C-alpha cells in the first residue's frame, strides 16, 4: 500500500457542516475503493499567496490515506466536481507502507492532536472576532489583517 496525501483548498465561506459533509463523502469514496483512511487535517483559514477565483483566503484541508493508487483518481474527480473546492494537490508521501496497523494508530493519535489544535484556533479566532467588533464599535480603524499567519497585509 502507498500513502497519499491530498491537500485541497475550500472556499473560506463554507460552513463547518458543509466541510464535514465533504469529508464524509471522501470517506465513503475511500471505503468503496478499498483504501485505508488515515486522517483529515483541517488547517483552518489561510491567506492565499495569490487570488484564486477572486478569493483571498481559503480553508486548507489535507487528507491522508493508504491505497494502491486506485483511490486517487476517484478522490480527485470528486474534488474537481465540487464547486467549493478551489484547488487540490495529491502527493505520494510513502511509496510502500508495510505496517498498516501501526500507521493507523499513529494517524489516530495525530488526528487527536490536530483536533485539539483546531479547537484552540477556533477559540482564538472567536476572541479576535470579538475584539474586532469592539474596536469597530469604538470607531477605530478596522484591522484588515485577520488571517492567522504572522504576515502583515502589505507583504
Amino acid at each position: 500500500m502507498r500513502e497519499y496525501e491530498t491537500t485541497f483548498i475550500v472556499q473560506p465561506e463554507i460552513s463547518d457542516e458543509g466541510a464535514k459533509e465533504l469529508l464524509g463523502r471522501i470517506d465513503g469514496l475511500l471505503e468503496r475503493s478499498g483504501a485505508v483512511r488515515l486522517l483529515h487535517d483541517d488547517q483552518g483559514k489561510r491567506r492565499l499567496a495569490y487570488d484564486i477565483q477572486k478569493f483571498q483566503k481559503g480553508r486548507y484541508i489535507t487528507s491522508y490515506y493508504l491505497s494502491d493508487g486506485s483511490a486517487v483518481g476517484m478522490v480527485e474527480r470528486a474534488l474537481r466536481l465540487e464547486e467549493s473546492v478551489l484547488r487540490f494537490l495529491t502527493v505520494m508521501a510513502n511509496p510502500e507502507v508495510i505496517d498498516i496497523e501501526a500507521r493507523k494508530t499513529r494517524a489516530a493519535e495525530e488526528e487527536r492532536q490536530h483536533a485539539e489544535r483546531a479547537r484552540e484556533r477556533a477559540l482564538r479566532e472567536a476572541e479576535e472576532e470579538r475584539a474586532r467588533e469592539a474596536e469597530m464599535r469604538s470607531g477605530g480603524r478596522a484591522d484588515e489583517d485577520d488571517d492567522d499567519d504572522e504576515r502583515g497585509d502589505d507583504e
Partner: protein
Amino acid sequence: MSESGFGGGFGGGFGEREERGGRFGRGPGGRDRDRERGPMSVKARLRAKARKKARKAQKKKGSFLRKKVCRFCADATVGIDYKDPKGLRYFMTETGKLIPQRISGNCARHQRQIATAIKRARQLALMPYASHHGM
C-alpha cells in the same frame, strides 16, 4: 561536438594534439597521468578547469570565502515540507524566485527537494509565483 569546434572554445587544443603525438614514447604516469583515465568529455574538462580556477582564486583571497554547508545535511531533524511555507521562504527571493544552490549552499539533493517543495507550495497558493509588490 566536433573536435575542431571544441578546440576553438577551449583554447590550447593544438598544444594538446602535439602532446598526444609524443605520448607513445612515454610509459604510464608522468605528465600524461590524467589522460590515462580514459577520454574526458568536453563538459568534464571545462568543469575541471573551473575547479582549478576556483582553487587558485581561493588561495589568493585566503580564507575569505567560507565553505558553505548544506543546512539539511548538517541537521537531519529539519525536514522539507511543501505545506510549511515559513520554512521554505528562506530559499526564495522577495520577488518569488528560487535562490540558486551556489548562494543557498544546499547540496544537490536537498536543493532539488527544496525546489520541488516550493513548486508544490506555489500550486497550493501557499507561496507566490511572483511578487507584484515593490515594483
